[in-house]
């Protein structure tokens, strides 16, 4: 690595602009080669040698706590597909690009993936901003694109796309199910404080929670709305404030290093003993914080993602996925791994559907995109259906932490699996309006919780 990097440095330093640009052009030509052979968009394109998939994920920056497990899951699953002979007899190859540098970079990389690498599908992205920028690009460049992990509900509520599909839920069901769970297990709470990261997700998720809470349980006192800086490492101010205000419930939709630090500091200062925490993304932090997070607090996983899911559709499938991931990467899979598994599963089911519809021939980009509409595909824990508006219908799991001897970190007990339809905004409606129409009897209709069972 260092040797090639060093070489590149001295070469650049020693050539003129023209030579450098010509060199770059030649390099671009090389990358371009192979693209012209694929008659994309033609009536009946030839079967490709391999199916190339561009995957946008965070390889650098704070969100790499999600991006790197997502990439690892993709590597494992692509290997599995290839070991089983590929999709429709064709091998698959992932090409990863980094979301770390921001939207400008991702938009450029998306164009490169499509126009130079000639990828057949794109998985984009973890950041909501990147998804919002890439979905219109999918339609412009006419390349099927699966939104594999981003949270914002704006994408399919604001516009319709022919080439962009989401293989998971969005912020509305993810936050609403945490709220419903809270209302079920702790119905008589009177006040609540929120500590969210100060950026789009922190604000959006609080908006959803508050709108839902005002409809389902009006009159809850919001003791404090605290938005510490994104990437903050010290939460002493927020913890002191919440300790003084004594709310019954503390909501935080934070994630990554922010959430880890908040949990550790709140634990040290006994805040967990004074209030019930609701943490819709904490499943991804459990293995890092370990038993610093006490029992009895509410944890979500942005979907029905839990390696000890109480009622998986196919227990063997979930076990194979969790054990396979754990033996290769040394930790239990967290929700981005499951989201990646869903995107890979959707890709497999979608391509097979399109190939079958074509009687074994290779579909055009438009035919492949059309296959994803209404597609139902298996996930490690159950199955996901892509609605007519492109939004995926994914179940949600919420549970309460429990310290079990078998694991060095908290596990979930009293788990509740929310069927996707019951918590997802119906087609054609906006989340903000739909949440206002919810009625308190929704809580009474919830299914029973399932306790943790030692293996």
């Amino acid at each position, binding site marked *: 690595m260092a040797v090639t990097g060093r070489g590149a440095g001295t070469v*650049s330093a020693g050539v003129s602009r023209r030579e450098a640009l010509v060199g770059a052009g030649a390099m671009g030509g090389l990358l371009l080669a192979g693209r012209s052979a694929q008659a994309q968009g033609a009536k009946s394109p030839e079967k490709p040698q391999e199916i190339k998939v561009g995957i946008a994920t965070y390889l650098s920056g704070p969100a790499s706590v999600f991006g790197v497990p997502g990439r690892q899951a993709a590597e494992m699953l692509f290997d599995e597909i290839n070991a089983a002979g590929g999709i429709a007899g064709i091998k698959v190859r992932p090409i990863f690009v980094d979301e770390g540098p921001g939207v*400008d970079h991702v938009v450029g990389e998306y*164009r490169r993936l499509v126009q130079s690498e000639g990828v057949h599908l794109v998985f984009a992205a973890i950041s909501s901003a990147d998804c919002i920028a890439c979905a219109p690009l999918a339609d412009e460049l006419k390349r099927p694109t699966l939104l594999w992990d981003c949270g914002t509900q704006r994408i399919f509520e604001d516009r319709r796309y022919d080439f962009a599909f989401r293989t998971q839920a969005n912020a509305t069901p993810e936050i609403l199910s945490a709220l419903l769970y809270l209302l079920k297990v702790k119905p008589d709470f009177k006040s609540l404080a929120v500590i969210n990261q100060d950026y789009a997700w922190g604000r959006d998720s609080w908006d959803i929670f508050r709108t839902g809470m005002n409809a389902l349980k009006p009159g809850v006192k919001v003791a404090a709305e605290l938005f510490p800086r994104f990437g903050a490492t010290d939460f002493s101010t927020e913890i002191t404030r919440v300790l003084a205000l004594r709310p019954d419930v503390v909501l935080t939709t934070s994630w990554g290093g922010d959430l880890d630090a908040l949990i550790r500091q709140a634990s040290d200062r006994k805040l967990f003993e004074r209030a019930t925490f609701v943490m819709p993304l904490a499943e991804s932090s459990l293995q890092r914080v370990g038993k610093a997070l006490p029992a009895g607090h509410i944890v979500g996983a942005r979907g029905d993602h839990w390696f000890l899911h109480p009622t998986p559709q196919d227990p063997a499938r979930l076990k194979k996925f969790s054990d396979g991931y754990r033996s290769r990467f040394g930790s239990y899979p967290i929700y981005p791994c499951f989201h990646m598994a869903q995107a890979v599963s959707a890709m497999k089911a979608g391509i097979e559907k399109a190939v079958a519809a074509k009687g074994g021939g290779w579909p055009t980009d438009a035919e492949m995109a059309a296959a994803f509409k209404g597609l139902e595909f298996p996930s490690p824990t159950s199955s996901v259906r892509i609605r007519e508006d492109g939004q995926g219908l994914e179940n949600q799991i919420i549970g309460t932490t429990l310290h079990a001897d078998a694991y060095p970190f908290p596990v979930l007990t009293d788990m509740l699996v929310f069927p996707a339809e019951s918590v997802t905004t119906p087609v054609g409606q906006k989340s903000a309006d739909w949440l206002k129409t919810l009625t308190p009897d929704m809580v009474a209709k919830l299914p029973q919780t399932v306790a943790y069972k030692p293996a």
Partner: protein
Amino acid sequence: MNRTLELVLALAGAALIVALAYAVPWLRFVLTIALAKGLAVLGILLLLRAGQVSFGHALYLALAAYLVAFGAALVPEALLLLPAAALLAGTVGLAVGLFVVRYREIFFGMLNLALSMVFYSVLEKFYSLTHGTDGIRLPPVRFAGQALEGDAAQWAVLALALVLALAFGALVRVALASPLGEALAGIKTRETRLEFMGVSAKRVLLSAYVASAVMAGCGGAIIALTTRHVTPALAYWTTSGELVFIAILGGAGSVVGPFLGAAAYELTRVYAAALVANAWQLVLGLVLLGVIVFAPGGLWGLIRGATQRKTA
């Protein structure tokens, strides 16, 4: 000598950009971004002449980009949005400039940095207006009344960027050779002497500052028109740092430098990202270290050195 070299390089560069953008379609986007950043760096070059480094010019980049994003909903015409964005950047540049030109060196740089971070926070905090870090998506924009789509729209923005780059490049070239340019150099060498000659250093620096804000504004507008998605990251200090970085990479000796630097920076970045997705920062860092160690005059310095050796 310098003059013909610059002219030849500028025209050859422009032709090469068009040829590359034609031959490799995905590079069209990258090159447009490079030209836009080059424009902003051209403004920074003016300030560098006076020995002042601004760590906050992303402010004008973001200001213009957001004006285009909001304005596109009302007046979807690129040829109106661009001058409006430049005007806004210039006006704010004048207001800010009145304060910051009183300071020099680290204080000048830090004040600029602070103001751009204030704007970054505003973009993030006024969530209901700006959608915070998720950013704003631009609706389709017309060019001189023509509704262009896909490739045609990309070519139009690239052409616009190229024209602006050549025009501002020529303008800055003339300005640097004029008394104003000499006065800027005077601020760097010995400001008191300038004052003895009856030239107001503050006024000289202010005019350079406003001009640099306008150029950064044009760059920001081009970025918004190309990516069609603006986020507060445009105002973040790393974007300002990137601009200063490009200035060093390209070399401060000539108006060609910023564009050389921007093209080299963007191309290195995308090719490094394509080759090693998880270590592209390392490659970029090594290239920049290489330039700093082996070519302190930047890429421009290398080229001039090579041509002078040939003629000698």
